[in-house]
């Protein structure tokens, strides 16, 4: 059952990602991205990473995607009120793009195939200790954030503040 769900969500992710590439309608692409994000969240939930799954929805759907849509709608000037005048992408260098894309994909696919993650020592040992599918990951996540990953956690705070300062600065100055 879980395996079936896994394949279903994988299918959803891949198909929506592929359609996103094919459609020239930017908003359709954005909404297809929604499907991809949700599918990925579902995959996280399937492997027991509940917190990560919900974070994925909050950050990517609630934050990134909405911002994206907002940006498209705000900058787009409808011409003539026709739906066909919707914002579209141009496709240039189609063949070269496809070629590099497929080439890169082939390379990465080969890398992942050769990497053979399931037989890696640390993953095998983690699996044997049943550490992967625990009841909930949240208490451990919290404890780790306050110990091992304390410094990264604080640096992220600075990073976000820098981003915030920069964003307001660039937005408030008329060039």
């Amino acid at each position, binding site marked *: 059952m879980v395996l079936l769900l896994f394949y279903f969500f994988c299918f959803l992710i891949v198909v929506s990602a592929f359609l996103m590439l094919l459609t020239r309608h930017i908003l359709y692409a954005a*909404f297809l991205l929604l499907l991809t994000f949700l599918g990925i969240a579902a995959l996280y939930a399937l492997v027991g990473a509940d*917190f990560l799954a*919900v974070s994925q929805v*909050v950050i990517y759907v*609630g934050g990134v995607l*909405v911002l994206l*849509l907002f940006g498209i709608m*705000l900058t787009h000037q409808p011409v003539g009120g*026709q739906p066909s005048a919707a914002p579209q992408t141009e496709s240039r260098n189609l063949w070269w793009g496809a070629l590099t894309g497929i080439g890169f994909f082939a390379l990465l696919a080969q890398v992942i195939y050769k990497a053979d993650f399931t037989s890696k020592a640390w993953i095998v040992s983690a699996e044997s200790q049943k550490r992967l599918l625990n009841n909930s990951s*949240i208490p451990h996540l919290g404890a780790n954030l306050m110990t091992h990953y304390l410094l990264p956690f604080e640096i992220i705070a600075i990073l976000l503040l820098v981003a915030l300062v920069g964003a307001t600065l660039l937005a408030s100055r008329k060039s």
Partner: protein
Amino acid sequence: MLSLVFFLLFIPLFALAGVYAERKVSAFIQDRLGPMEVGRYGLLQTLADIIKLLLKEDIIPSLADKRLFKLAPLIIFVAVFAGFAAIPLTPTLIGSGLQVGVFFILAIVSLDVVGIMMAGWSSNSKYPLLGAMRAVAQIISYEIPTGLAILAVVMICQTLDLQSISYQQGIWINHYQHLEADQNYLFGLKPLGIDITLVGGFLTWNIVRMPFLSIAFVIYFIASLAECNRAPFDIPEAESELIGGYHTEYSGLRWAFIMLAEYGMMLLVSFLGVILFLGSWNTPLPNLGYLALADWTSGKPDTLWGQLTSIFWLFSKTFLLIFAQMWIRWTYPRLRIDQLMYLCWKVLVPFALAIVLLCGVWRLWMV
């Protein structure tokens, strides 16, 4: 599963009653009578409206983006409906005992935003687009104070599990896993030494466990009004200027779905407010010596009496909150957009931040 069926039936019913209540409340506030013609005291008025809605033609503007236009109401409704999965109805009845329940509901609200945007854009018309813009800007902004207020509760309760949060606020605290050894102290302060674990009632509600959470509750309530686009934060729908905002172009069944989602959203945020701050399904009456009011008014979690009393308390508190929402809607004028943003960023967010900090300190005294 039971929870799913329950909510699937309950939300339309609630919308029915809600619309009627809204009309009556507004009428009484404005010293009118409200609907009186259809049925006794106009009780069947909404039913008649629903039948009219179902029979209406489903109009899709010819220049609309048809696929998205058709899809949007569904997304809005499904998103809101999915939120109910994490709501605990009784001590044992909950759709999905998620460990991340609160966080999940927050995530759901953001899905709702995407649906609204889709509706506003696909209508290909000025008012819906403007309405959608406003709705999204407002919902995203007010998610921050909401999130912070919720975070304050989570810091006090040390869990994201809504059922655990519920148990912590009453006399049945020791009946939930991981909480067997927990004690409740007056104002949550262990140094005070007043053990009220078995006293329960409103004394163990979160707003009393950590008194500053009452401010957080006010923040949450204000922000939740904005989240469901209710007056005085209804500039996205503003009938008088935007003719309904993002759902201007909708009619018939699709419009009904959007309305259903709106009322569902009201219900959802009220549920969440009750669960987080107002003792969830716990009774407000404390055990006072021989007057064991709490024991009398709430049964053991796994008994039928326990189920009935808890569902009663949860719903009465929720309906009280919904009444407050209506009351505010018909009392206050609509905010201007700059006032809206001012309130959010310069009033609610700083206060919410301060409360989060206070809660962190308070928690140190609680153990």
